[in-house]
């Protein structure tokens, strides 16, 4: 949605941004389309901005900006319009600050980046956030994936009473809803597993490199399907369309407002908690033994008066 007619505020912002970008582009300049697309403006607004920029002049020094339009390219001529890369605007600064915090970028690196790029004062407190749980080891795991380093993680799965160490070859980080997962090769289990990033308690990089595995990892969905059990659940169709479980393999509507949903899962406790949370709206189909275990687990969680 290119902003059709700019306000004075937008015209000022876009003019500064365009001068900065044109100076950075050097003699090659930029095409009109590139400028319009990058700065979300129409061709008419670009003409207007070029018009304004071309009027800028310093009477004392005689300096003026020459903004040349050659066919479809716009080029800034000479040094008078020199706009070195500006620090980020307050709003962009808030986004970068959020990125540095939420991804747990190492403190010294984050401080250097803030010093170099953020505006002198953000001017307001944090006003951009997301609710994605990334844990504390995002950066180290990213580096480990990039450099092919084998890792030792302390992790407590949903069914573990205590955390335990796992030797893993990290493969990929992926997100589902508000959860971030590490997909990795569990060396001892000799299989692919997924780990919730916010449940990794400790991470150690080993001296060893990862070993190439024949199976290609593509998604959390595949990872769950490879290592998990599956179950068929019956639930209202509108609920089936809303749930965001990563392990959903199929949803079949029965035409009467109910759906049969096949789900891969790696933790029976997780499955039970989701079914009980629906308060009877979800039922296990065709597995009496699993249903019995569900009822036993549910009753054990009840408060007794």
């Amino acid at each position: 949605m290119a902003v059709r007619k700019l306000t004075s505020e937008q015209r000022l912002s876009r003019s500064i941004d365009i001068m900065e970008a044109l100076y950075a582009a050097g003699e090659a300049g930029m095409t009109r389309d590139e400028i319009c697309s990058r700065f979300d403006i129409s061709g008419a607004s670009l003409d207007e901005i070029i018009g304004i920029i071309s009027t800028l002049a310093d009477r004392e020094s005689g300096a003026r900006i020459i903004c040349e339009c050659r066919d479809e390219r716009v080029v800034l001529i000479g040094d008078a319009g020199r706009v070195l890369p500006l620090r980020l605007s307050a709003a962009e600064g808030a986004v970068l600050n959020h990125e540095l915090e939420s991804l747990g970028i190492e403190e010294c690196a984050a401080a250097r980046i803030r010093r170099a790029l953020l505006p002198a004062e953000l001017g307001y407190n944090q006003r951009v956030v997301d609710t994605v749980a990334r844990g504390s080891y995002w950066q180290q795991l990213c580096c480990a994936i990039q450099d092919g380093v084998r890792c030792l993680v302390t992790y407590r799965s949903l069914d573990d009473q205590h955390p335990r160490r796992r030797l893993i070859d990290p493969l990929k980080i992926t997100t589902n809803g508000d959860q971030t997962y590490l997909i990795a090769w569990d060396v001892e289990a000799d299989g692919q597993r997924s780990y919730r990033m916010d449940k990794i308690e400790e991470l150690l990089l080993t001296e060893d490199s990862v070993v190439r595995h024949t199976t290609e990892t593509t998604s959390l969905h595949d990872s769950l399907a490879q290592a998990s059990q599956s179950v068929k659940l019956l639930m209202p169709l509108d609920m089936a369309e809303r749930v965001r479980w990563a392990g959903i393999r199929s949803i079949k509507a029965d035409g009467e407002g109910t759906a049969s949903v096949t789900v891969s899962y790696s933790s029976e406790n997780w499955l039970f908690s989701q079914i009980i949370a629906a308060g009877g709206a979800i039922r296990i189909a065709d597995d009496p033994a699993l249903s019995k275990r569900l009822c036993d687990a549910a009753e054990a969680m009840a408060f007794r008066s």
Partner: protein
Amino acid sequence: MTVSDMTATNKTNAPEPGFDKTAQRILNLFFVLNSSPEPLTTEQIVLDSDLGYGSGNVDSDKRKFRRDRDKLLERGIVIKEVRAAGAQETEESAWTIDREHTFAAGGLITADDADILLNAIDQTLTTGSSAFATPLADIRSKIAYLTGETNTAEPPVVHSPTVDAVWSAFADRCALRFLYQNGRGEQRQRTVCVYGMFEREGTAYFCGLDDATGKIRTFRCDRIVRAWRPSRAYAIPADFNLNDYLFFEFDFSDCQPVTATFSFAPQAQSDMVHGLTRGRGRLEHAKDGWTWTVDVRDLNAAASFCMEHSVDGMRPVAPNELKQAWNRLIERTVSAHGRA
């Protein structure tokens, strides 16, 4: 911006250099200070009609100059006052661009820092950030340019026109008028001063002061049917806290809020607990575990939320009605599976 700052658009829509005198004057101020080797005195600036001042009313031009400095500051351009050593307070000020605080210091970012940051941004863009794709792409370009890492492949950026419209209004601090369709399919035009943006479960939201109700409300970006160009400027109240608006399912009810308490086991991971509670309410950590106290409007939804996370060690503590709602979930589940 005042009406007098704008001249009329010509009918052919051809570019007109004198179209926006305010933008032109502020840009010219930036240009002149940027290209001048020496600081310029207040008098040199406010008496210069070519620059867009020099109206004949010096006080008015000084005020205009101050407003223009503030406008440039909002865009990260810091104009500082300089005085010669030993100068008297009464002596005239001179002005220059504070280059250290205005221009990015590329040399201070190491190649490794840039690599970490570009990688982080690429990850976020690749997983499809719904709310911040546009600013992240801009930040990425700037870092790549500063560090000379312009050859690395840029991840595909998924732009959403409605999110971009909200971002643009938020970044410029201009109220956004839009046609909004609520969850019941009803459409209504609204004007909102956007105070903050957030992403929840892959969906972009924004909240801000809604003209129609005079209250801070939360909206989904993907429910905007049409947006008009942002208009009047606004300021965000200093005490506004976006965390208070990171909603849970238990917030949606007409009931009065009640204070509910939940617990987590002592061994629950700090990252997990903080992620789950999203900075809402009060979170306390003691030897016997974590306690989270938060306002809840719908106790049944709160019990259900707690049950969904029971596998993470979350349990309801108070009030009793919350525990009863928890027990009802269990009874209904057991009953649905044929056990009386």
